[in-house]
């Protein structure tokens, strides 16, 4: 970890952009019953609501520079508290990756590789993740930059063919056909799902130069992912109606399957598959990285490959054992509803208290 250099603006932007788009790309349909046609607005609002929490982390980074959030806790509340907090952090990251792996694998099985065993697909992804993060963070961040650009190009290259024949504006009118309560419920759920990016930010805050001064790097990443994500939902809704869109979990692939030019140009869903693939690789890698760094904090070692493989097994084995899309979907929904954001807030509160205690101690010594 000590060898990791500082992140640039583009790196932070891409890492945050990619880490927002995790399980949310599958579970966003959970809110559709509550939000109906306003699902895309609720998604944008929900993702944007993550910004205050991200700024909170960056502010803590200003008060306690060159430290992850767990190191901040360590400085005021002690090593034991910090190590204890790292354990649920590792588990949460593992659960996020398990849900992502299972949902991605189901998509691959359903649309592309019906006869390939799921463990092969999962193993490939976990091994790729291990390979990507085994080097420096900056190298991984550069890879994420490339993946983010490729992913977005893929997505919109495919959907450009939807215009104008497959676009039905009447499907998204009226924009608000739900109650405020439904809209707020949907937005809050999306905030919970998008707060997966905070798990990464709690670690990489250490590598952001002048984190609070550069809050825009993170904020713009979150906003852009919100805009892109809500546009994607909007396009899917205009193509296949909100009534159908809310029933499915692989909206992008399903919508792209409808695209056809003449008799022979079809199968544009492979482009969308590419985007889902990049998101899955990115998300699993990020979860591996976060868990790895936290494990180093618990065990006190520095970037051990054995630990990384243990983390990989911690994600891979339960993923294979779970082996069902439905359970993974509800696991991701549960995490988004009740775990990720509350846990993050809890850690941030402790980190804030810790910094307060540290500063108070420093003040009393100075006196």
């Amino acid at each position, binding site marked *: 970890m000590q060898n990791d250099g500082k992140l640039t603006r583009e790196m932070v932007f891409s890492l945050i952009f990619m880490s927002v788009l995790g399980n949310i790309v599958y579970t966003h349909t959970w809110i559709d019953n509550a939000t109906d046609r306003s699902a895309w607005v609720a998604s944008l609002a929900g993702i944007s609501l993550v910004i205050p929490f991200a700024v909170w982390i960056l502010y803590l980074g200003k008060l306690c520079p060159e430290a992850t959030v767990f190191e901040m806790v360590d400085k005021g509340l002690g090593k034991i508290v910090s190590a204890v907090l790292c354990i649920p952090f590792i588990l949460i990251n593992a659960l996020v990756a398990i849900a992502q792996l299972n949902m991605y694998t189901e998509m691959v099985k*359903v*649309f*592309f*590789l*019906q*006869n*390939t*065993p799921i463990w*092969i697909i999962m*193993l*490939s992804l976990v*091994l*790729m993740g*291990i*390979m990507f993060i*085994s080097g420096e963070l900056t190298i991984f961040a550069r890879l994420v930059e490339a993946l983010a650009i490729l992913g977005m190009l893929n997505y919109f290259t495919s959907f450009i063919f939807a215009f104008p024949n497959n676009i039905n504006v*009447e499907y998204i*009118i*009226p924009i*608000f*056909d739900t109650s405020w309560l439904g809209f707020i419920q949907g937005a809050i759920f999306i905030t919970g799902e998008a707060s997966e990016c905070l798990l990464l930010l709690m670690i990489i805050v250490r590598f952001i130069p002048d984190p609070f001064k550069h809050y825009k790097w993170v904020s713009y990443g979150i906003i852009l992912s919100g805009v892109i994500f809500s546009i994607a939902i909007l396009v899917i809704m205009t193509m*296949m*109606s909100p*009534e*159908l869109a809310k*029933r499915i979990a692989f909206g992008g692939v*399903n919508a792209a*399957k*409808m695209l*056809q030019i003449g008799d022979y140009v*079809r199968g544009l869903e492979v482009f969308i598959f590419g985007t889902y693939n990049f998101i899955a690789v990115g998300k699993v890698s990020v979860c591996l990285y976060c868990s790895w760094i936290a494990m180093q904090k618990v065990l006190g070692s520095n970037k051990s*490959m054995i630990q990384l*493989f243990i983390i990989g097994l911690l994600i891979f084995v339960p993923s294979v054992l779970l082996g069902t899309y439905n359970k993974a979907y509800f696991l991701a929904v549960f995490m988004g509803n009740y775990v990720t954001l509350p846990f993050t807030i809890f850690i941030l509160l402790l980190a804030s208290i810790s910094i307060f205690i540290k500063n108070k101690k420093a003040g009393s010594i100075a006196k």
Partner: protein
Amino acid sequence: MKKRIALLLILLVLQISICGCWDYTEYENIAQVEGIAVDFDNSTKETTMTQQYIVPKSTKKSDSLGGSSGETGIVYSAKAKTLFDALSKLQQVMIKRIFYGYLKVFILGEEASRYNLMDIIDLNDRSPVIRDTAYFVVASGNAQKVLSTVDENTAKTSSEIISGLVNNSKTTGTAFPVTIHDVTEMLAIGGWEVAVPRVISTADDIKPEAGQTQDDVFLAEKSEGGLRVSGMAAFKGDKFVGWLNEKESVGLGLIMGKKLTMYQVSQRPAGTDPADILYFRIDSSKGKIKAKLVNGEPEIQVNVSIVADLRKYYTDQGSEFLTPEELTRLEKELEDSIRSDIQAALIRGQNELESDIFGFGFAFFREYPRLWQTDYETKWPDIFPDVPVDVTVKVKIQHTGTNIRKLIVK
């Protein structure tokens, strides 16, 4: 060093796992399905599934497979209690893996459309091997017969012919293309019932081919005949309720804003000499449905605008020159003709079939979402037949050809 070895191991495992493709199939080893037909016998509660396969040229054996040239595909049928059993039986007689990726058309028999539309939609919905972009049609009578029809004048399969006919139906207006996805949408969206094109075969009734018949799986005999796509089948919920004739189908297409480019003739009383009827070609058509509340009751406004060309004028009783006044009179004639088609569709859909195939309920929802959800969604099927519909047709004759005068015969 340890790290390098670990990374090398990862690369090795990745290479082995990624290269070992479990899903690899040679093209010669797949049976490519072009058309699927489903029939239902209500007396025995049995479903018959018929599939038309394309045989790759290298493996074609026209004699043993029953096709006269092999180009028209092989048609197999299987009968079972459930759709899935029938599907499984079809695979029993196929030495190749059935592949649905290039399905062109899905045909539902008339009786099947009364009983198992949802079976088919759900099967398709859960197993994405079938592309949603395949056309969905309802056969007048037996769907198996339609798929087994061979047009001796062309080397194309019946699936290809039906697909082409559905695609071209916009140029006659007597039907318009509907895909499997469209049907699913219409089933899911409130206040909008399903309407799909009708396909008719002129072939004789199908019989299992002699010598190749089993009790429940058989190679369907090909019968010579023609195929025609004309009219629409209307559903209420997931049940077929009746047909729309050509005139009513044109009206339905116009109300729904389908982009029809078709020929239309002037509306004249019965018994009019055909020579006195004017011809028009519709260049473009636009339709918009607006819902409003008048004295607290829903009312529908249908606005249709047409741009047309004049294609016959010489026998008309009007002036020699095609003056602007004359054009206005002709536009009025076309307008009446269009309005009569729309009224015919409304009478059929609203009063006779009582099925909202126009999507008036969906238009009302878009205008009054809250009111729809609280008051109208559940009772719409009951009030729909009595909802007043006001039709406005605007016609513009844009092109009259190269002559400004009528042709006067000496």
